[in-house]
């Protein structure tokens, strides 16, 4: 039995856990990550130097106050509905709060992008494939979109009509390129048994370099010092319609993302392909006996996963940047957190993306308001994955404090949780 098969057994067990249990585990993991994050904030508050301590615990001054950091984070992500810098526990409402303001647009922008990458990771994980390569698929898909739009835009009438033709085509091109790049590790897995974790990570490095070369040597913007493509005309991009104060959020992209969530759910749960995909992830042996072509399913699942990642790149180019630029943010890695937090369920991806999008957009307010670096989100990203990966920890915690003794008994009797070797 190979490690991947074992991993699949674990995924199977995770899927077997009830929906309520998974939601509980995700929440508990989030709370634990936030708590550990608070400790990290406190400790780093001792490392840095400041004039006045932000908080004092046990007679020791700390430069950063974790409670304040999280308050500022959520407040910033929502566009500052409260006046958090006032003293007292209950903060007064901000009379100038505007839900269409920059802060909320930023949150929704991040959420939209994370829906795509989260879906990408979720599809592969459901197929029992650890696609860590969403990042690379996103980088190349985004570049393809930018180049396609740049070369085709002059051939089309500018304005709304041109946009209506060009934008969907550009997204499809991004999806195709991302999908083909995702199919490479799929084929390597299916036909050469090469571990997809490693191949996708290697392909991330290769994608970044290839994209860099293509843009810096061939298709770069000659007027720019930065490695980037020429900006697209406004009509060829997704403009912020409902949120005029900037923040690069287009409600159209969010609507498209939500439609994809439903489409992916339908594909996974209601079609025979989805059935093949899930069974080869959950019960590979049964899938083989049932006549599923495992190799083809592997390649197709990875193509699909890559296509979703590529679309994420397309949306990043069309909605956020209006061009492709080197140094693409780590949306693909964030997608892993989103998918794991969502229990790899397409519908779960939406709240998970919203939560993680809130963390990401709020981190900017945190850096500005409290001085805690925005890289904090990178730490939380890993911590969340760690805690979701150990449901046993929460079960033990639950039974230790005797929270739900009944459920424990059921789990033990049912024998579906853990204990494969017994």
């Amino acid at each position, binding site marked *: *039995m*190979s*490690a*991947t098969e*074992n*991993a699949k057994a*674990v*995924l199977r067990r*995770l899927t077997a856990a009830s929906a309520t249990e998974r939601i509980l585990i995700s929440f508990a993991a989030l709370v634990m990550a936030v708590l550990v994050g608070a400790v*990290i904030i406190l400790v*780093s508050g001792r*490392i*840095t130097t400041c004039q006045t301590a932000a908080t004092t615990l046990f007679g020791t001054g700390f430069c950063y106050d974790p409670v304040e950091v999280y308050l500022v984070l959520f407040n910033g992500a929502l566009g500052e509905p409260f006046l958090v810098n006032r003293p007292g526990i209950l903060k007064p409402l901000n009379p100038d709060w505007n839900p269409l303001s920059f802060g909320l647009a930023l949150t929704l922008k991040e959420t939209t992008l994370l829906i795509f990458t989260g879906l990408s990771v979720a599809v592969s994980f459901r197929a029992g494939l*650890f696609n*860590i390569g969403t990042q690379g698929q996103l980088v190349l898909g985004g570049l393809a979109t930018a180049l396609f739009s740049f070369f085709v835009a002059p051939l089309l009438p500018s304005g709304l009509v041109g946009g209506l033709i060009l934008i969907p085509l550009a997204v499809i091109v991004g999806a195709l390129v991302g999908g083909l790049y995702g199919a490479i590790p799929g084929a*390597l897995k299916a036909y*050469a048994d*090469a*571990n997809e*974790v*490693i*191949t996708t*990570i*290697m*392909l991330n*490095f*290769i994608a*970044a*370099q*290839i994209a*860099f*070369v293509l843009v*810096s040597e061939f298709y770069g913007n000659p007027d720019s010092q930065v490695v980037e493509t020429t900006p697209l005309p406004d009509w060829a991009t997704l403009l912020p319609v409902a949120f005029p104060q900037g923040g690069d959020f287009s409600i159209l992209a969010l609507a498209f993302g939500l439609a994809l969530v439903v489409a992916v759910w339908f594909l996974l749960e209601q079609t025979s392909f989805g059935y093949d995909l899930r069974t080869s992830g959950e019960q590979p042996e049964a899938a083989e006996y049932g006549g599923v072509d495992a190799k083809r399913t592997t390649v197709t699942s990875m193509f699909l996963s890559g296509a979703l990642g590529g679309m994420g790149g397309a949306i990043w180019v069309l909605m956020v940047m209006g061009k492709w630029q080197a140094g693409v943010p780590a949306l693909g*890695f964030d997608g*892993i*957190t989103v998918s*794991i937090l969502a229990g790899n369920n397409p519908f779960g991806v939406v709240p998970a993306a919203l939560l993680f999008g809130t963390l990401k957009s709020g981190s900017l307010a945190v850096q500005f308001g409290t001085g*805690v*670096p925005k*890289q904090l*989100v*990178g*730490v*939380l*990203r*890993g*911590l969340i*994955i*760690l805690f*979701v*990966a*150990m449901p*046993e*920890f929460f079960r*033990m915690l639950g039974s230790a404090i005797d929270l739900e003794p009944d459920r424990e008994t059921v789990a033990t009797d049912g024998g579906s949780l*853990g*204990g*494969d*070797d*017994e």
Partner: protein
Amino acid sequence: MSTTTIDRLRDTELSYRATLAGGALSVFLLIALLGLAFPGSIWGNFLAILTSRSTLSSALRLSVPITFAALGGIFSEKAGVVNIGLEGLLIISAFTAVITTAVVGPEMTVLGLPAIWIGFFAGILSSVLFSALFAVVCIRFKADQIIAGLAVWLIALGLAPFAATVYYGGVNTDNLGTTLGTWTIPVLSDIPFFGAFFDADPAVYMMLVAVPASWYVLNRTAFGRHVRASGENPKALDTVGVDVSRVRYAGVLLSGFLAGIGGSALSLGLGQFVGNNQTMVNGKGFIAIVAYLFGNYNPIGAFGASFLFAGLEAAQIRLQQVPGYAIPDSLIQTIPYVTVLVVLALVGRTRIPEAAGEHYDTGDDNR
């Protein structure tokens, strides 16, 4: 899986490895031939790069983090825990080594030990602590090893730049202005080409000791036997009264210790931690995994593969300095990663330890 299938797989594996090693050798011979025939051409440049002493010495230096991480990965996976978080262990030790040295003061000595060596050991300690966390999560809390390993990587990838920003205001640390330096052995270092072995970073000597030592521990000691049994047949090990969990903890901690040496050596060799994008570790932990798969879990084979990958990296760096040909640097930089992919595609069917990736329950829940 029946024995015949395993045997057949093993045969194909061997032929793959032979093909690959033969392929590498013939590529080298081809370059040598072309280089000798046309000394002024690009092949001449290739040959000069491949046979220069400075390429050898940088290949040795570059193979240190990969080799140590690969050795660590062998112990962990042989014991039954797939440690995909090696990259994270390299990152955290590389960062801790530099920041500790900076906090102590690069010029200071404590108890006769220069600050840089205190940083070196602090880096190892941080990696051991991280691997202890990973071990507890995997063994005690039965987490999925792949996902927990990814978490270790991503936590380190977030934590190091975060801490660097807290302390320095940017994701890179300041340069310490000092490095581990080189230890030169008189006379021997004067040998042409191979003298590079005797005029090297201290960590290179450590590596040259650690590789055979790991082989010996794994294959010739009781502990090594326990480690292998814990990965192949934990039930049998349990039956003879050895605590499987303890052996697995030891395996994972050892992987943290070894990867820690690699990480500390990486950053202190440069005197700085670079935290951009994928940090200065830049996939070395994952390359290490491929190196030990290629080396079939044999420390010496893993060193060979690490040295091959590091050699490509060294040649690649030197190639960028050769003027007069038009391949962009970024494309050359992909050579090691592409090679890793090709190697993995060819030796992908490696037989991993039977019970690697599985939890082992003794049936005794109160442990």
